[in-house]
């Protein structure tokens, strides 16, 4: 996965035409859709990657418009000749990105001779009609409102495998409801006082090391807590959660010592 924002996927020329031992390239089939996803947010990249993989796409995820152009060979330095086998079937990009916006990336792609035919889909968390119109006018195939759902990606996917010009189908995603602007503060959270670590209940004796069949290296709890160990207790306190009530007061839910990691404010 493109955790570091770099290119995470082999180019088609490397995967399809390996000449070692006379390996033949597999026949072109539904699984051969290659999508280039562009988003500066790592969280969003992981999610869109998952959505695309579930719909049987190969995914390359990059963190900026510049990296996308670099990958496509459209940046000024690379000669495009060596990349004539690069196969990208869809480009899906976030709109708001630092440096180069999705709109600017769209324009550059549509200006290129090698990739102007590739459908480009824009994603945005903001439902701004002028923005949507501008992107569609510049040649975007579709405009998706974030957070993107599996249904959206499935729809895109089926449009790709159908050999129908997308301009005849629904071009604009019309969201059912516009994004509401929350002008009032949400109700304050239940007072969450910081209590000293009081996890004195002993862990259930049946806890055993990871023994599931498809055992991942880390359990969900460990994956979840390990990068943020500075915010949590270092000890692995397996506290049995008390029966949850409708209003979880701190005393009733397992207490985690939370250092209100000083964001410089008092």
């Amino acid at each position: 996965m493109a955790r570091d924002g770099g290119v995470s996927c082999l180019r088609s020329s490397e995967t399809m035409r390996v000449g070692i031992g006379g390996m033949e390239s597999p026949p072109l089939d539904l699984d051969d859709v290659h999508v280039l996803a562009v988003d500066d947010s790592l969280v969003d990249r992981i999610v869109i990657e998952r959505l695309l993989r579930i719909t049987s796409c190969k995914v390359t995820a990059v963190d900026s418009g510049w990296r996308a152009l670099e990958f496509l060979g459209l940046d000024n330095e690379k000669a495009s000749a060596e990349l004539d086998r690069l196969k990208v079937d869809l480009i899906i990009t976030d709109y708001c990105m630092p440096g180069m916006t999705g709109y600017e990336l769209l324009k550059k792609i549509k200006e290129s001779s090698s990739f102007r035919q590739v459908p480009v889909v824009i994603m945005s968390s903001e439902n701004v009609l002028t923005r949507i119109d501008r992107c569609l006018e510049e040649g975007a195939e579709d405009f998706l409102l974030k957070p993107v759902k599996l249904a959206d990606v499935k729809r895109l996917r089926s449009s790709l495998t159908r050999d129908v010009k997308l301009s005849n189908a629904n071009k604009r995603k019309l969201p059912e409801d516009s994004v509401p602007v929350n002008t009032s503060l949400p109700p304050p959270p239940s007072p969450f006082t910081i209590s000293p670590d009081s996890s004195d209940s002993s862990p259930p004796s049946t806890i055993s090391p990871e023994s599931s069949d498809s055992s991942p290296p880390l359990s969900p709890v460990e994956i979840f807590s390990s990068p943020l160990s500075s915010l949590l207790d270092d000890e692995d306190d397996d506290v049995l959660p008390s029966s949850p009530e409708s209003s979880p007061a701190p005393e009733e839910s397992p207490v985690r010592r939370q250092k209100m990691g000083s964001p410089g404010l008092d």
Partner: protein
Amino acid sequence: MDSLAAQLQMQYRNYILSLYQQGFLDDQFTELKSLQDDGSPDFVAEVLSLFFDDCVKLVGNMARALDQTGTVDFSQVGASVHQLKDSSSSVGAKRVKGLCITFKELCEAKNYEGCVRCLQQVDIEYKTLKAKLLDMFMFEKQIVQAGGIIPQVDIN
């Protein structure tokens, strides 16, 4: 053993429902859960872990930007708020997202004290959510260890 698993499952269901009812989570979280399967059993945990990393980083950025002696660059604060709004939206962190929407307006209004207060709330909110979700994962672990399967919770 069966009754322990069943009891845990019931508690788990109630716990999940309460998280939705209290507005901690919205249906984007449901969507994320639906993307998890046996082939990617830790998908939700991974995404959430990255989200909370984001929170730490972005809250730090906002705090630093607001801590400037002299003029505060509200657009810089706003940029981080925008990113956090997007991340929280993507994982279904409803309260955090709501706070970010308010926060964004405060940045645009260059309301310094409002921003500082809002930042404190954001800080509390994401940490609260993190604790709750950690409990959720603990529940799941215990259900599995008691020999049960993690129930799909229908929030409708």
